[in-house]
């Protein structure tokens, strides 16, 4: 592993240069990852609460046109969209966010290669930051991650003291990115950053994901689902704040009789309409079936299909739930 040391001032100089070049630099704020206009907005605080949403919408927008169409008397003309493949540098992403794209990548390249997702992802540089925050909702350690996990990061930062960071170069992409700035990097000492990472307070492991996987396979008809279903309002905020939920709906929006566009919009499996068939039949007609789908998809089906859990343990769904449904608690109870 290639480890360097960089001062906060030098890091901000790099950020200034990035903004100056016209690239988008995103950093987490209270509510969301926002594009930095001035480096004074950057807060590299490892103990900050995760932003209410992840940067998912920058690789998979809430709503985007996938094509335009024009109708004439006996023809339909389709007009392609040029995807905006500009460089986006994400600074200070928490480990529960950094691996979100690598988890979603499987889905967007499974039966069909999603050019919108892939092009945007190719232009991402993810600079992760160790996390020293944890509250009752965090459970990254239960889904195979940790507050010091480098997974998904191109470059990983560890705060050594108030003014200095250890900078680990993880991927080739990260190496290429940092090379022009090598004058700011000092040779690092791994023992120093190790001391920091070893002293990070870890969220307790709430459940064994393998046991949950087994239980879900045997308890499709468990009465437990009914109890949760009665609580859930089916607002789907959990899906919208989730860094890895990726369901979308395709709808056509007509401007007039002769032209319109086809949109790809975020959708959520907690909505009744999500599985409503044209016939009127709905295989997930009640909320308990929808919640069961949510847990099964994250902790069983995705594992079956792609070998990864569809959850980063960030706890956003629980923090934002208007009726205080805590996914950590629910999954911890997925046992006999």
């Amino acid at each position, binding site marked *: 592993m290639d480890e360097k040391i960089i001062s906060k001032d030098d890091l901000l100089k790099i950020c200034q240069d990035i903004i100056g070049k016209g690239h988008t630099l995103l950093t987490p704020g209270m509510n969301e990852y926002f594009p930095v206009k001035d480096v004074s907005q950057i807060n590299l605080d490892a103990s900050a609460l995760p932003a*209410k949403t992840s940067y998912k919408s920058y690789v998979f927008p*809430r709503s985007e046109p996938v094509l335009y169409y024009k109708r004439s008397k006996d023809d339909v003309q389709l007009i392609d969209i040029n995807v905006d493949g500009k460089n986006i540098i994400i600074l200070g992403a928490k480990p529960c966010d950094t691996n979100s794209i690598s988890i979603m990548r499987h889905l967007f390249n499974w039966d069909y290669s999603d050019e919108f997702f892939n092009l945007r992802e190719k232009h991402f540089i993810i600079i992760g930051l160790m996390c020293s925050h944890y509250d009752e909702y965090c459970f990254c350690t239960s889904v195979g991650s940790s507050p010091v996990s480098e997974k998904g990061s191109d470059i990983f930062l560890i705060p050594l003291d108030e003014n200095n960071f250890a900078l680990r170069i993880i991927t080739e992409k990260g190496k290429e990115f940092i090379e022009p700035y090598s004058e700011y990097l000092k040779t690092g000492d791994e023992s120093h950053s190790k001391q920091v990472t070893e002293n990070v307070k870890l969220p307790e492991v709430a459940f064994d994901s393998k046991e949950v996987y087994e239980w879900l396979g045997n308890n499709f008809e468990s009465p437990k689902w009914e109890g949760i279903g009665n609580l859930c*309002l089916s607002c789907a905020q959990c899906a*919208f704040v989730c860094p890895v939920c990726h369901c979308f709906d395709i*709808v056509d*929006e007509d401007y007039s009789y002769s032209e319109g566009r086809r949109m790809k919009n975020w959708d959520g499996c907690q909505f009744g309409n999500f599985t409503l068939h044209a016939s009127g039949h709905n295989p997930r007609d009640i909320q308990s079936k929808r919640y069961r789908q949510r847990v099964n998809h994250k902790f069983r089906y995705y594992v079956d299909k792609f070998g990864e859990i569809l959850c980063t343990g960030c706890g956003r769904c629980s923090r934002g739930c*208007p009726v205080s449904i805590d996914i950590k608690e629910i999954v911890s109870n997925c046992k006999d």
Partner: protein
Amino acid sequence: MCPLCYCQRCITDKAIPRWIESSSHQRGNFAWNIVRAFHLSARCTGCGECDRACPMDIPLSLINRRMAMEAKKSFSYVSGRSLETPTLVGSFNEKDSDELFM
């Protein structure tokens, strides 16, 4: 969460015809909020649940408070004062003042 949302099926769930676009662009969001604002105008009880429930902390009740102000200014109507007075939106009349519209 809203104690005054009582529709059996929300208008956002009605797709044939599609009244409110599901895209979260300005038009879709505006359509939803204007429908909600009018349905709750001079009916909102001010419980604040919409504010509390919003995962992004949007102070949604401000819209309802503004509508209550308009109802008082334009129609001298304050909700909950009398059981006999017909509700504001329920007693719509073509001759009503339309000064509050932009």
